[in-house]
């Protein structure tokens, strides 16, 4: 872990420096469907010890325990929803890479759409004002692209 931390201190403006050693944890689930769900789930949880890696990549033992827990729950027939709930109730929303859509986080999910709507309204306002001005504007800008027939 120390290696990771010092890496972050060393080069903070640069790109993310992930862990020096990588966890590669091959597992076999009984069915391909379970295997796919397992893969999706372990990529969606944050490792609570190293914090900026998913359970899929984290080399620490806590992550291995959590992966085992997910495996057991999947085989026992729990739904993805139940497994997520299990971990969120223990570690909070912090463990999910995908923030949930609840009252406290709604603004986060709505923001991109709201920004886009504000942008669209401003575009409409600007263009409406400018189309009126076309008649009084006497400048004839020279085109950048070649037009029309050979001259």
């Amino acid at each position, binding site marked *: 872990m120390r*290696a990771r931390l010092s*890496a972050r*201190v*060393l*080069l*903070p*403006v*640069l*790109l*993310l*420096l*992930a862990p*020096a*050693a*990588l*966890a*590669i*944890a*091959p*597992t076999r689930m009984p069915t391909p469907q379970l295997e796919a769900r397992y893969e999706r789930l372990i990529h*969606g949880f*944050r490792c609570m010890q190293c*914090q*900026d890696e998913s359970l899929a990549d984290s080399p620490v033992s806590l992550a291995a325990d959590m992966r085992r827990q997910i495996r057991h729950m999947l085989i026992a027939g729990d739904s993805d929803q139940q497994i997520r709930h299990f971990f969120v109730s223990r570690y*909070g*929303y*912090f463990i999910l*890479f*995908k*923030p949930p859509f609840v009252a*406290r*986080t709604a603004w*986060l*999910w709505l*923001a*991109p759409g709201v*920004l*886009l709507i504000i*942008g*669209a309204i*401003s*575009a409409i306002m*600007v*263009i409406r004002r*400018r*189309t009126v*001005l*076309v*008649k*009084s*504007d006497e*400048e*004839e*800008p*020279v085109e*950048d*692209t*070649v*037009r029309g027939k*050979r001259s």
Partner: protein
Amino acid sequence: MIPELGEFALILALVLAALQGFFGIAGPAFKRERWTAAVTPAVAGQFVMVATSMGCLMTSFIDNDFSVRYVVENSNSALPVFYRIAGVWGAHAGSLLLWIFLLGAWTVAAAFGTSKLPREFAARVLGVLGVISFGFLLYTLTTSNPFIRLDPPWPDGQGLNPILQDPGLAAHPPVLYTGYVGLAVAFAFAGAALLEGRLDREWARWTRPWTTAAWAFLTCGITLGSWWAYYTLGWGGFWFWDPVENASLMPWLMATALIHSLAVTEKRGLFKSWTLLLAVLGFSLSLLGTFLVRSGVLISVHSFAVSPSRGEFILTFLVIMIGAALALYAWRAPQLKSEAGFELTARESFLLFNNILLVTACGTVFVGEIAPIIYTALGFGKLSVGPPYFNPTFLLSMLPLLALVSLGVHSRWKRGGFGDRGKTLLLTFAAAAVIGCGVMFGVFTGGGVLAAVGMTLGVWIVLSSLVDPIIRLRRRITIPRSVLGMTLAHIGLGIFVFSLTAVQGFTTEHDVAMPIGGVTQAGAYTFQFEGVNRLQGSDYGGVSATMLVTRHGQPVAVMHPEKRNYWVQHIVTTHSAIDMFDGSNILVALGQDLGDGRWSLRIQVRPLVTYMWIAALIMAAGGMLAISDRRYRIAQETAEEPAAAAAQGKA
């Protein structure tokens, strides 16, 4: 002696930066000719001092001077000289010095570049740069001095983090910083225009090459970082929406918007105040990125060992700089009205959409970036915002943007419409859809709607960008470099979108446990695990595996993924083996010894990922080509006024 010299030079640089800032801004304001004339010598003096300081720190690293704390923390006598030099910017204090050094270099370039411009304007540009430099010098000297001595000296250094011991360290930070700092020049041009209260099309023409240059460096820097992360970190990712990555993406998005808005300001005298605002915001986001990363305020993963005083200083600096710029802006912007008009389908409209969508995308990244801070500040606890948030929300504004590129390129100024290009556009779109879907089903055997849309848009952007150059070639009309540069950049964008779609849609990834001699399949490739050997490097030991890769029985590659143990720092790192074949990147990473001669391995086959980085470099090359256009060369233009006007008319 050398560290003291370095520190002394830095203090002199601080004084000179203060003089540069004062003379540059006060000289023109009070009409003091002699003050204005003193700016250029201050610029030269400051740069000499900063370069001396940089040289001193480098010397301390090369000479293994372990009486300097910063050298002890980031170097070791076993380290090759190459990494001792790159180690200068391996950590906070040294990378700040690099920042200041690059700012000095940009300022000297700006002093030459503005020497033919009106004297007062040039002085103001250099003055604003002086103020920025002063702030950063003060910051370095008060909170992050790299020249502090240790008494007694250490016998040896603690070494450079193994992840950083890579040629990527030598290239990525300087290039990225050159981009960040370049935005300071665009900001300074905006500041000078605001101080002067005058902003015309000439101003836009003066500013364009500087902005484009900064943008090109930023593009290269981000690309290098992504590529570096891909091949050194072992997990095969190239973009994780990490806060630090976002901090570089936001200024890039703003700079991209600024380039396009400057085009409108130069051509039509429109969007003046908006252009100024973008220049201010672009540099603000550079600073804000530095603040978020340095202060530790950014989610818990960044909160260790970062001194709060460093963050506070940047925040104060940010508030003063940006506050002053915005106050000036609020005062001057209303005077910058334009009476030009344009129709809905005019080039101006498309560039307006471009700007709105890029700023929206930037805003989205910003919201995601600061959401964890706000969430915690509201007392709700901790929140993670990861790729599952950024991917879809970023696409929300990027998809319309990519869909509009081809239309915008072929629309006419002012009265709008596509003239005789309407049919060509439809044809290129149809061809793109056929090629895009053909590649998807033919090469990758299927894929979702998003993959089809991505591939079609990528091909369409490339094809439609080629239309104008082809017509010009056939009619033997010269292509101005600015048009050629734009075309090249857009082709790069098209290739980027196409490759990114392929990577996102068609990557195969397997984590497997393999016995020696075992065989596994990934995509069209067969992997045979031949075993492991011991490994001995200069400052590390470890194991190296041998993996035979074949396709349809034909040998493709022999790969050697490594696991290294750096004994100076006691760090184990994964060195993936990466090979390119048929446009696909094959990545093999060595995991753990599972016992009984079995090892865990990660195998990835990523199509076209290399082309994604090449495409980004093509974009940057397009920017550089556009800068070399003759109409930006002020000296010639003033000498041959009619010729330049004609060239501009054609462009």
